[in-house]
């Protein structure tokens, strides 16, 4: 799996290269600023781009902009965005950029190595990895809304895990219930929220995120 890395802090860039390499990923380019990142993404067309939001030269949202721009030039380019803080606003902008695997995680999540690598692979495979903090912010925003307040606490948990991008098996494992129970919850959720169930895992995730992001 070929990776392009955009991270300006040397300590973190070296750590990520070491980590990704240890899990059989090939870091084909590691850059530390926005313009170079934009070039590297289009030139290398990696299986997944791991990108820090804040990069030189402006130290604002250079990385995010480069990622969104590259997804416009290379449709379906999988991007995993990392940041010291997560904003539902940025998640919305990323989700509205043309399809393909997408991840948006807090930088802290890299300390859970197994899950971080799993997220990188999910995104490379066209899936979604949304940070629990983004999802809980989106859920909190809708907490007072009619259809969402009708969900049971367990259904809300399942909805949140779905929005983070987990498949049924992953949700079952985290909640320590059977996959059959998870499907039953998911059917109830879709009925209550008036969403059409979708067999395609990632389309389902995107539908849930679109619902929460509305």
């Amino acid at each position, binding site marked *: 799996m070929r990776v392009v890395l955009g991270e300006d802090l040397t300590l973190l860039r070296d750590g990520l290269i070491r980590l990704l390499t240890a899990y059989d990923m090939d870091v084909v380019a590691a850059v530390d600023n926005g313009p170079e990142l934009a070039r590297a993404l289009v030139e290398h067309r990696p299986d997944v781009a791991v990108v820090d*939001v*804040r990069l030189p030269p*402006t*130290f*604002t*949202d250079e990385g995010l902009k480069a990622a969104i721009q590259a997804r416009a030039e290379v449709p379906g380019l999988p991007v995993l965005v990392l940041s*010291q*803080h997560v*904003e*539902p*606003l940025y998640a*919305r902008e990323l989700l509205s950029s043309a399809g393909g695997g997408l991840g948006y995680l*807090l*930088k*802290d999540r890299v*300390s*859970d190595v197994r899950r971080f690598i799993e997220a990188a692979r999910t995104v490379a495979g066209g899936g979604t990895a949304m940070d629990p903090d983004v999802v809980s*912010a989106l859920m*909190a*925003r*809708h*907490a*007072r809304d009619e259809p969402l307040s009708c969900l049971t606490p367990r259904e809300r948990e399942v909805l949140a895990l779905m929005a983070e991008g987990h498949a049924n098996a992953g949700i079952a494992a985290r909640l320590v219930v059977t996959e059959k129970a998870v499907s039953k919850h998911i059917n109830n959720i879709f009925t209550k929220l008036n969403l059409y169930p979708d067999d395609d895992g990632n389309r389902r995730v995107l539908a849930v995120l679109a619902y929460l992001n509305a």
Partner: protein
Amino acid sequence: MRIATPYRPRPAGAADGLAGRLECCRWLLTDPATWRDLLWSLINVPAGVVLGLMPMAQAEVASSLLAPTRGEMAARVGQLTVSRTRAVDASAAELRRIERDLHDGPQARLVALGLNIGFAEQVLRDNPDLALSLLAEARASSGQALAELRTLVRGIHPPVLAERGLDGAVRALALSLPLPVDLRIDLAGRASAPVESAAYFAIAEALANVVKHSGATRAWVQLDHAAGRLVAIVGDNGTGGAAPRSGGGLRGVERRLAAFDGVVAVTSPAGGPTLVTMELPCELSSART
């Protein structure tokens, strides 16, 4: 050419003594030139005095018409002293709070983190299970330290404000609230960082009050810049009756804006709606592209 003396000739061969003096008086009193001289003296002296005082009077009139009055100057100095003292007090209190939060939060977590890693190092060979659980604890500590730092940073200067300016930060703020917020933002550029920060926290406080107290189902924010003033209006369709209480959030906003000569006005009749209007004099720099 000769210019004749304006006076009549002195009587020639005037006798000495009383008769002579009388003759002299008669000559003086009957000469029209004497009366003309007297008239000149009468007019010239006051006119000279008036003309001499004129520049001083003119300065006095000009300063009274053009310069601020003494009273106004004193009031302005008083106002600046008060707002400066409050701003200094508030920022000192803020720094103390940050110091305390860092001390009790992330610093303590990092100490625990180091302790756990050091302990794990010691027992790694003899007791790998204990080492594993210590490392897991250390990782949890680092996560908590980061979460605390994030909260702290948001309170000091929200990253989205640094990245997107007031426009983007208010949009992000609106997305984080549990009620729909209609936005009308029209800013052609960015204000200076301190002004952006003051305006952001003022709007955040007003919106937090909407969520906490108003019982509103909708809120809206209007933000624009005209005639050298940044104007933010936060409104809601709640129950009204809001008033700045001492020690309350709106008083804090008032203090914060006063440091920039900004003002807050709240209209909130019982039954609503509530409107919080904030104005900050400032210039915008052209938008970064």
